[in-house]
């Protein structure tokens, strides 16, 4: 058995690796995606005061601390049975919308986008943010940087810090938006809406008008039929901050729709001995291994999954694009769902960007956003609470139990990317099996095609790569049975 070790180091939690085993016939026998990292938040948070969790759990992830800040704050509200003031909810959502815009923008242009804008088999040196800028123009590059900077400005204003926010606490937020600051919030939101339109045009001109790319999106290598999960509002529209979790089956029918406090009835996590990360799956379907289909409890929670699981978007521009995406990729005007082509995730991400921008403008223009009624002092006895938000990389669940003084006794966290761990592992294996055959010369293009299989999930163990040249470097080592290196390829 030959062994390929793929080690993409640019991971958030440091150091994951992919092990691909090839049998004597040259076929891929199996592929393992290992996450060799554990920090143990669920244990060491026990004993901490629950109101500190929005400030502690941000340290799970310095790239998307906003998601943990929000999920923790919502779980705290639930622990104290406190209804937060309407203005406080809007302020949290406004912060969260600016965050989504910044996060999705950087992924589209710096990390995922280069595969399409430059092309999957473009020279490695061009397949990065600089290549994107070369293709769409320097002005676009400047727009990307400006978008991130203005969103960061608002995140610091509303969250206290650009990284690791501090303002949400049980019952509301500690700081509001002053009337004299509202104009700037609106100005930034308007600029973001224009930027979303620009990004949709980039997608249209460079990707969707190119038949080869559309064929690639619809091809089999990047196709998986699984369940899909996403948070929806009362009208089954995509929502990032609040609502119920809806799951649809591979045929598009609703499998379940649950409130945060019901998650244990629907989600379970499996432990494997070869990785530190657990594998969530749908409890009522059951764990059947790393396989597709209606009988397998594997589900996916990505931008594309959210669009599959919802009936539409809550804002006009995003809704129009939503309809166009499903029509284009299914060839069916009736709004047939779901889409199984995993590479459509990139398109879904831009549609979500448009929604976040439109929604941030609605919130920034809301007269109530400058209200000073932003705190409710909790009075009920604290006990148990669950908070769920949509992190950019998947449904994020925080579950806390406390004693009567609000000191934590149990903590359970199901984090964005973790939802997608099984699908990522399956996608990597499928790509490897489809691309590496007997006598295959492992080239740069093949490595990138394997890499694309997990890049589309925007995995959080790599989400720090969001920030600059989005080239995920890879080394593939081929060893013989004794572990001696026979051949090594690198794609820098």
């Amino acid at each position, binding site marked *: 058995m030959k062994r390929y070790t793929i080690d993409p180091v640019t991971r958030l939690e440091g150091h994951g690796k992919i092990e691909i085993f090839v049998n004597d016939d040259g076929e891929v026998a199996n592929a393992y995606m290992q996450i060799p990292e554990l920090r*143990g938040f669920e244990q060491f*948070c026990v004993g901490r*005061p629950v109101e*500190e969790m929005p400030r502690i759990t941000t340290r799970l992830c310095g790239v998307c601390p906003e998601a943990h800040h929000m999920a923790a704050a919502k779980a705290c509200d639930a622990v104290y049975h406190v209804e937060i003031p309407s203005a406080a909810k809007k302020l949290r959502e406004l912060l969260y919308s600016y965050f989504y815009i910044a996060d999705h923008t950087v992924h589209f242009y710096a990390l995922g986008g280069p595969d399409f804008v430059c092309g999957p088999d473009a020279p490695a040196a061009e397949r990065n943010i600089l290549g994107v800028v070369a293709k769409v123009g320097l002005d676009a590059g400047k727009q990307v940087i400006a978008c991130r900077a203005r969103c960061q400005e608002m995140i610091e204003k509303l969250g206290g810090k650009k*990284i690791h926010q501090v303002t949400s606490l049980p019952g509301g937020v500690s700081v509001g938006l002053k009337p004299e600051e509202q104009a700037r919030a609106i100005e930034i939101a308007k600029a973001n809406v224009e930027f979303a339109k620009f990004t949709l045009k980039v997608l249209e001109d460079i990707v969707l008008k190119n038949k080869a790319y559309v064929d690639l999106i619809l091809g089999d290598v990047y196709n998986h039929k699984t369940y899909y999960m996403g948070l929806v509002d009362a009208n089954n529209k995509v929502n990032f901050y609040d609502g119920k979790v809806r799951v649809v089956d591979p045929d598009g029918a609703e499998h379940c729709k649950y409130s945060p406090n019901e998650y244990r009835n629907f989600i379970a996590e499996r432990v494997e001995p*070869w990785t530190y990360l657990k594998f969530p799956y749908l409890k009522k379907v059951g764990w059947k291994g790393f396989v597709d289909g209606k009988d397998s409890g594997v589900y996916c929670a990505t931008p594309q999954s959210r669009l599959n699981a919802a009936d539409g978007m809550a804002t006009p521009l995003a809704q129009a694009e939503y309809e166009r995406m499903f029509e284009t990729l299914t060839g069916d005007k009736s709004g047939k769902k779901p889409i199984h082509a995993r590479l459509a995730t990139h398109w879904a991400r831009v549609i979500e960007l448009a929604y976040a921008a439109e929604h941030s403008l609605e919130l920034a223009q809301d007269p109530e956003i400058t209200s000073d009624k932003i705190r409710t*002092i*909790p009075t009920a006895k604290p006990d148990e609470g669950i908070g769920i938000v949509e992190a950019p990389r998947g449904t994020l669940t925080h579950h806390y139990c406390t004693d009567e003084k609000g000191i934590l006794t149990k903590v359970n966290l199901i984090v964005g990317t973790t939802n997608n761990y099984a699908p990522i592992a399956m996608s990597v294996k499928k790509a490897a099996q489809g691309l590496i055959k007997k006598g295959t010369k492992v080239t740069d293009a093949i490595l990138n095609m394997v890499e694309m299989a997990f890049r589309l999930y925007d995995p959080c163990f790599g989400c720090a790569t969001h920030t600059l040249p989005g080239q995920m470097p890879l080394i593939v080592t081929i060893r013989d049975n004794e572990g001696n290196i026979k051949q090594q390829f690198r794609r820098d």
Partner: protein
Amino acid sequence: MAKPKVALYWAASCGGCEIAVVDIEAHILDVAAAFDIVFWPCIMDFKVKDVEAIEDGGILITLFNGAIRNSEHEHMAKLMRRKSKVLVAFGSCAHEGCIPGLANLTTKEAIFKTVYRDTASTDNPNGVVPLTKCEMPEGVLELPEFYRSVHPLDHIVDVDYYIPGCPPQSNQIWGVLEYLIQGNPLPEKGTVLGAGHKTCCDECPRIRKEKKIKTFHRPHEIIPDPETCLLDQGILCMGPATRDGCGAKCVKVGVPCRGCYGVPPGSKDMGMKMISALSSVIDSEEPEEIDRIIGQIADPVGTMYRFNLASSILFRAQDDMRR
């Protein structure tokens, strides 16, 4: 002349330190112009092999963020030390262990039990746990060894300088880098860079009066006055026991300091420093009343050592004794 080589590495971290470096924005280009960045997994190629190929001491400066949580982190810390003339513990995790260091209040066994058995959604009737070597049908898969305790970088290797903060503020990061780019002489070994020389209180805009505390409030229990010192209002604020340099960002938005910039000059232990500060402001002479007032502080160890436990005198809970 070849540009001096610089490296950045992350161990047990959240990625926030990397984002903080990126947040120096256009100055990144100044850094790239002045230095040859030879290793930065977040942004550039994976080149552990290339780092191994560099002669020992061939890298001028390595900024190392993240704590030491497992065997892979230790291996990388030792490699980067050997290859670097100057090794900087960058950010709270490498400096003092940060929030992941709170794991030293518990045990490796308890962490594994909670994460892989007891958590509400875990379904693991056979008690499977991750193994450092796992026999699979196709071959052996390996994982790094999860250590008993979290260590700051200087427990593992010799450290030359420290840049505190969770994360270090970007203006401070650029300040340090600019100083180096201008070719200024290196400061004395062990110096804390990118921070002030006083406490967070010294850059806090809130008005302090003579403190007399009879009641402690948790942050969600009261709406504090926006102008007055939070500690004066009975909210435990770690400002008096925390080095300045962050810009007092948390207190400016109405929430108390939790100490991410680490111990102030002249102190090794934030908890001791804070207890010393509190002992002079508790407004009572009666032992019973003093007990009552102190008893209102929720989770003293997890609050006063939030960022500093792993590098404090305490270091960890004595699990061996407890068993």
